[in-house]
């Protein structure tokens, strides 16, 4: 059975291979703000917060980026990765008007294999092709410590639970 999320109660199917606790994060390659290819190896040895969201120009996604930026400030050796299909140009415009210092954005502009491999790709509805709203946390060996697929896209993820997984 595929996973599911929803937008204002309309169900949306999500690719069904979300990693479980203790599993290793799959390899990925995405595109950073400077339009360069960046793989998971660039963050080798760091703990990771992977924040997947549908689009920065929506209130909930923008808010989550801001809140995670603040929360990540007190977390040592932790890479905060914001992942969406927004183009790097769009993210540059967003960052130019915000005072954010802790996260980096990675775009799926060259392909959405990563979203499939991570089990976060929405497959139905008008948002098909975009990432669902998901918070995933991994330790320095890329072992998954916490996963939340947000069940209603207009809701924010449980930030506290994600941060606790890194402090536990």
């Amino acid at each position: 059975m595929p996973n599911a999320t929803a937008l204002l109660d309309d169900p949306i199917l999500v690719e069904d291979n979300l990693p479980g606790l203790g599993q290793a994060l799959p390899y990925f390659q995405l595109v950073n703000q400077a339009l360069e290819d960046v793989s998971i190896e660039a963050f080798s040895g760091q703990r990771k917060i992977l924040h997947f969201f549908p689009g920065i120009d929506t209130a909930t996604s923008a808010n989550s980026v801001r809140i995670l930026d603040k929360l990540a400030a007190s977390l040592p050796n932790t890479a905060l990765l914001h992942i969406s299909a927004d183009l790097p140009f769009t993210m540059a415009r967003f960052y130019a008007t915000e005072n954010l210092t802790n996260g980096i954005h990675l775009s799926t502009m060259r392909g959405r294999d990563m979203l499939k491999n991570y089990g976060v790709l929405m497959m139905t509805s008008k948002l098909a092709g975009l990432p669902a709203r998901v918070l995933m946390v991994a330790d320095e060996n890329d072992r998954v410590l916490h996963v939340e697929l947000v069940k209603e896209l207009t809701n924010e993820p449980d930030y506290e639970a994600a941060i606790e997984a890194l402090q536990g």
Partner: protein
Amino acid sequence: MASVTLKGNPVAVGGKFLATGDTAPAFQLADAKRNLVGLDAYAGKRKILNIFPSIDTPTCATSVRTFNKEASSASNSVVLCISADLPFAQSRFCGAEGLENVVTLSTFRDTAKFATDYGVFITDSSLAGLTARAVVVLDENNKVLHSELVGEIADEPNYAAALAVLK
């Protein structure tokens, strides 16, 4: 496979770019409300397809503003601004700028398909995965009246040449 440049460096563009007299292939793109629309949504109208890498870059934004301003002078025609930007980003831009004479369409559901069918798919360089800068003008029957694959991505398209074929 065509080639253009980005600030002087060669960029490969995949697919066969449309030439005058060709019939434009069907497409399915997402409008501002994320609904899928095709050419048939504008049946009977002449169309200016303004295709570019991203609305959040200065040249692309200028092209959208310019076509928005000029579009009202061409009768029975619609300007379709097409990019891989998400509909959220396209809507934000047009809302902030008060642009009402252009329609924005996003390739986000399948950029490779649209871009290959129209011969505007950037396949290498830092922009790989996006659509090149191009203008294609179609008549009421979706026959190509004019097409320009802009040779240098940082340059603006030739607006006058595109609009002239509709006068």
